[in-house]
């Protein structure tokens, strides 16, 4: 439907131009330039709340990508076919509303991306958390990404589950509860500091504290420690609030204090 609208707009413009005569060239050119800029900025692939067959969704999605991005940028995509040099390793939630490619406009090649429940980075554990560990190892050792960005978000179902269970007495899940327990230290901190506030506010604080905890857990990986010590990598946190459309970001810095020698008196 959006594609139909833009097609109609172009046809309308062509018809307008063919009917006009004796127009001031400068003004017309300026108007057309402005219209072209606006059209260029319009993303015609915006989600519409219309129910679609799933296969039709991905068919149209792929055709749009191939026609409007891949075929129009052969140099970029030929280069990406040979290898990738992403600037970011991103940890984001699996939540359908928070894909970093949308909210931070990451294009192909920009970000090596891990997505899991509640965007958690567990501490080093080669047996239990080899999935996340493998991604960190590959991103740092093989791809040498210069930035790690952990992005939390509002109304996170994983954090809400962490904050409510087992106190709410609900039946445990097979896997979810075990996974979100990684962020238990964040929960403890939030309850200690903000226990008097509403549950929703506590969840919001926990969503941000869990990002900080994940940034701290990153330092339990030897390759991250080494890269941080050599100043080859930066660790950043982010928080996307999709209720009011805001984004916060901050950096996790590691410093050594000056050395103070102790003199015997």
């Amino acid at each position, binding site marked *: 439907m959006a594609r139909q609208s833009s097609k109609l707009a172009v046809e309308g413009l062509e018809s307008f131009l063919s009917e006009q005569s004796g127009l001031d060239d400068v003004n017309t050119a300026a108007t057309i330039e402005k219209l072209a800029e606006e059209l260029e900025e319009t993303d015609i692939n915006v989600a519409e709340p219309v129910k679609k067959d799933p296969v039709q969704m991905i068919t149209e999605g792929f055709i749009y990508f191939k026609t409007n991005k891949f075929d129009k940028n052969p140099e970029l995509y030929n280069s990406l076919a040979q290898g990738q040099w992403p600037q970011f390793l991103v940890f984001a939630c699996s939540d359908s509303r928070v894909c970093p490619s949308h909210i931070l406009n990451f294009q192909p090649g920009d970000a090596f991306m891990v997505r899991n429940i509640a965007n958690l980075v567990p501490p080093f554990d080669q047996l239990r958390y080899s999935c996340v560990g493998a991604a960190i190892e590959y991103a740092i050792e093989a791809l040498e990404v210069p930035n790690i960005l952990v992005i939390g978000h509002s109304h996170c179902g994983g954090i809400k589950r962490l904050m409510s269970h087992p106190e709410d007495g609900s039946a445990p*899940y097979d896997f979810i509860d075990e996974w979100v327990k990684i962020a238990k230290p964040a929960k403890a901190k939030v309850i200690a500091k903000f226990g008097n506030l509403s549950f929703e506010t506590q969840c919001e604080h926990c969503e941000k504290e869990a990002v900080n905890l994940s940034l701290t857990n990153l330092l339990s990986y030897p390759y991250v420690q080494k890269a941080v010590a050599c100043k080859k990598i930066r660790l950043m946190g982010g928080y996307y609030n999709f209720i009011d459309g805001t984004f916060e970001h901050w950096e996790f810095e*590691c410093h050594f204090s000056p050395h103070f020698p102790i003199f015997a008196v």
Partner: protein
Amino acid sequence: MATPSPTTFSQPFNFSKDVRRTTLKTSTIFGPKLKSGEIEHTHLRLLTSFMTGPRLELKASKDPPGLTQQLDNSRLESLAETENVCDFFEDLKHRFLRFKKRKFKENLEHFQNLAQGQAPKFMIIACADSRVCPSNILGFQPGEAFVVRNIANLVPTFEVHITLHLVYFEFLLPKQTSPLHFFFLCVQSGPSETNAALEFAVNALKVENILVIGHSRCGGIRALMSMQDEEDSSSFIRSWVVVGKNASLITKSAASNLSFDQQCRHCEKESVNHSLSNLLTYPWIEEKVARGELFVHGGYYDFIDCTFEKWTLDYEGGNLEKNSRFAVKNQFYWC
């Protein structure tokens, strides 16, 4: 008093104690700063490999290199670095504001609805590779797909996440000449990240489709195909990609006459099918597939010539066998 033998069960590692001279400062643009000094509440368990056998010894874990490494002053370009930090944050700012202007504000009502809850039709399991984000290549918009991304888009089985270890422990009490022997059965979970996401997507969000997308030139699959049994097992990548080992064995037996690159390509698709079979080892997934409430699809994105293949697992059309052969239907090839 009991004197335990050198073999011990596990060595909990307290990060804040072992990295003595670490001072961490954080700067935030909101809220209170984290404390400098020791890291709070971060207790790390560095579990090491276990060896089964009559005399068990725990291998010492590799101590992570401490943060006492001296900074190379010649590399410090503090002014340039500050500028780089600002550039990155400026970049992030522009990226977000562009999204806010072009999508969020233009579709405010839709985003307000999404803020109340999500009801995606798809769960996607895709590779973490920067070139294959499903939002880019398949055009998923906010609210449409619950996405898991890991190395080589692998799905572990429901059972493999539990590993049993038999730990042997010797205890020599004072004034005793022969030690007491103890055996402990230890249950250790395998990789658990993807399982939690599957559970949430299928049981909480009730997605109707799961799509596992493989892709060309996958580094994880290449690592899997290159894996030798005698290799050092300290690599995380190896510990993870071994989840797809059956796919590599099938590939090596079926495509041994092909070049290594061609075998990798074959394995990229074989591992998608292997993941689809693994999905059916989850009882709550198999139940829904059997009832026709959930459909399981495989996909393959080739970014060299920009093509996409898609197929659907035909649950009724074939039985699952041990070597993960099953029937497929609705195969498409887009180019």
